[in-house]
């Protein structure tokens, strides 16, 4: 392991420009740490979309409510994997839970994660699905019925008062869930934003920028999944729902863009000690991923597409095509955002005198293949989840389950 690693480092050594501290040649937080905030962002964003229905009574997006919850769950289940795989000593991960250092933002991961998974997401999904699980448990035969009954925790009460309680519980959990989702992803932003040694990261805006980009990516993902799922099931897309969701997407992108622009202008105007090296960073190392992928392809073009789709009276099919394209481009843009934060923050020396290079591995535990597998895993989990749990309330439409 060691000779292979240092060989790669010698290669990187020759690509350094200017002066860096000698220990800085190795890029420590690699592709998996790009994937991690990307995934938690999707969780938070999907949940906030779901909460639009329950808390803010946006009835139009009801068709995506359950899908958004299940998406959040599928991605949340995978969220710890990139972190775990990235650890130098993954077998010691439990120390972070058993003996956490209370001053460490990272040590809070276990608690934030457990809170969000147990107290928010699973609970909300359970109350939302309880009646359907009981119905399915009665309908389905043999082991499938037993699984549904087990999932409903063997509750049987479908009286009106019980159902009213379910609705109340879902609403209450969602109200707690919104700040929790903000906490989950704002906390990830804080991990980066609180590093005072790194001027690219250390910004009080970081958690907020993370949150807004999370909402953007979450809404875009659910839009994408909703369109794919309905076409797979050969169902009609609810255009009113799609129009509403993409409107929210549009506003979220605008807010996200404004925040990032504010961050950029603020840095430029304050022009602190680090401004020169950060200028060289974005022009020499991040030009493609920041200006082309994140801002142009991931933000301005989809914004233009959304404006076009809203302004003109296109046919539904044309609108769908435009929305679909925008959703995919936005995903690409948000992934680039995460890349530019995580990798970008490690490509300049803390001496502010030189730039490093990151060379992505393909194989290996922190390589491209593992990252792709980690990114694919939530979709597989989601595929199972939507098979087991109906994305429409039973009785609203016949045969919604399969």
């Amino acid at each position: 392991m060691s000779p292979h690693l240092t060989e790669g480092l010698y290669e990187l050594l020759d690509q350094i420009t200017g002066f860096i501290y000698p220990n800085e040649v190795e890029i420590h937080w690699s592709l998996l740490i790009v994937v991690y905030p990307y995934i938690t962002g999707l969780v938070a964003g999907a949940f906030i979309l779901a909460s639009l229905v329950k808390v803010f009574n946006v009835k139009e997006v009801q068709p995506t409510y359950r899908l958004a919850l299940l998406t959040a769950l599928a991605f949340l289940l995978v969220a710890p994997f990139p972190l775990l795989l990235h650890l130098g000593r993954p077998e010691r991960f439990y120390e972070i839970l058993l003996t956490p250092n209370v001053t460490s933002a990272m040590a809070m991961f276990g608690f934030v994660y457990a809170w969000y998974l147990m107290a928010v997401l699973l609970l909300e999904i359970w109350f939302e699905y309880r009646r359907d699980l009981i119905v399915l448990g009665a309908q389905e035969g043999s082991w499938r019925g037993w699984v549904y009954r087990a999932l409903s925790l063997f509750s049987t009460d479908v009286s009106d008062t019980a159902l009213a309680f379910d609705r109340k519980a879902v609403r209450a959990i969602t109200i707690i869930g919104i700040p929790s989702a903000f906490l989950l992803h704002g906390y990830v932003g804080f991990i980066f934003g609180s590093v005072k040694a790194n001027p690219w990261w250390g910004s009080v805006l970081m958690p907020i920028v993370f949150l807004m980009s999370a909402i953007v990516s979450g809404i875009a993902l659910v839009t994408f999944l909703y369109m794919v799922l309905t076409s797979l099931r050969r169902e009609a897309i609810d255009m009113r729902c799609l129009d509403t969701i993409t409107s929210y997407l549009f506003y979220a992108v605008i807010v996200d863009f404004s925040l990032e622009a504010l961050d950029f202008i603020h840095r430029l105007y304050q022009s602190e000690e680090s401004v020169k090296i950060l200028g060289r960073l974005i022009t020499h190392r991040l030009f493609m991923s920041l200006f082309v992928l994140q801002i142009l392809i991931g933000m301005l073009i989809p914004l233009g597409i959304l404006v076009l789709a809203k302004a003109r009276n296109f046919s539904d099919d044309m609108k769908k095509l435009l929305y679909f394209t925008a959703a995919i481009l936005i995903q690409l843009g948000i992934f680039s955002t995460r890349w530019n934060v995580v990798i970008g923050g490690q490509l300049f020396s803390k001496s502010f005198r030189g730039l490093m290079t990151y060379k992505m591995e393909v194989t290996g535990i922190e390589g491209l293949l593992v990252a792709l597998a980690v990114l694919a895993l939530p979709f597989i989990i989601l595929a199972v989840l939507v098979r087991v749990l109906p994305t429409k309330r039973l009785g609203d439409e016949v045969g919604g389950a399969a």
Partner: protein
Amino acid sequence: MNKRDFLKGLIFFFPAGGVLSALAGAPAAKETEVQDAGPKGADAKGPGAKPYNSRDHYYGMGIEIGKCIGCSRCVEACKAENDVLRDPFFFRTWIERYVIKKEGEVTVESINVKSRASKEAVQEDADVLRTFFVPKLCNHCAHPPCVQVCPVGATFSTEDGVVLIDSNRCIGCRYCIQACPYGARYLDPRTKTADKCSFCYHRVRKGLLPACVEVCPTQARIFGDLRSKASRLVRFARMNKIHVLKPALNTEPKVYYAQMDGEVR
């Protein structure tokens, strides 16, 4: 008193003084223990010697930039003493060379790393205004960001003012490496845990000097106890105008530089 009596008296006077000062535990005695410690320093603890109490000490280092000749003996000694990998990506201490030209251009290289960039960096030139070496190491900050961020408490500050890493506890998340403003930390690829300068804590606890200080031929590095008024370090701080690296970050480093140029970061 004749000459014979006087000499007899001397024979008793000096050892008696030694015993008394050991019993009194005077700060001066503590300082001599660390500072004058040759190899005998470790053995000096007789039955009457006071056991080591971390609360009585608070270590730091002084670096006199004008004295450093860039011989890198400190780097070599550190790597040998602490079993640091020889590859030029893992340093507990290293030396930077600054060249400031007359028109103001500054070039810096790490003289222990031979990269293309560093070869290009330094040209022998007549218009050099000044040039100097800066030894770097962990600053053993009094307010260390690495300790703050470690999720499992594997890196910690000792009572005697040293920042250490428990490699049996470190999970290799590398948050500390990101949080250190001085690039003092690296991940040891053998253990997959974070590593950095320990002020040679294993030596200091025995009354020895850190390896880099021990071998420095020009005494550019001065190690000492800030709790002791008689410490060489305290004297160093009194006699020189001193500065620390990146003071604006409020890390409160305990590596003090004398004659430091504003270009040093």
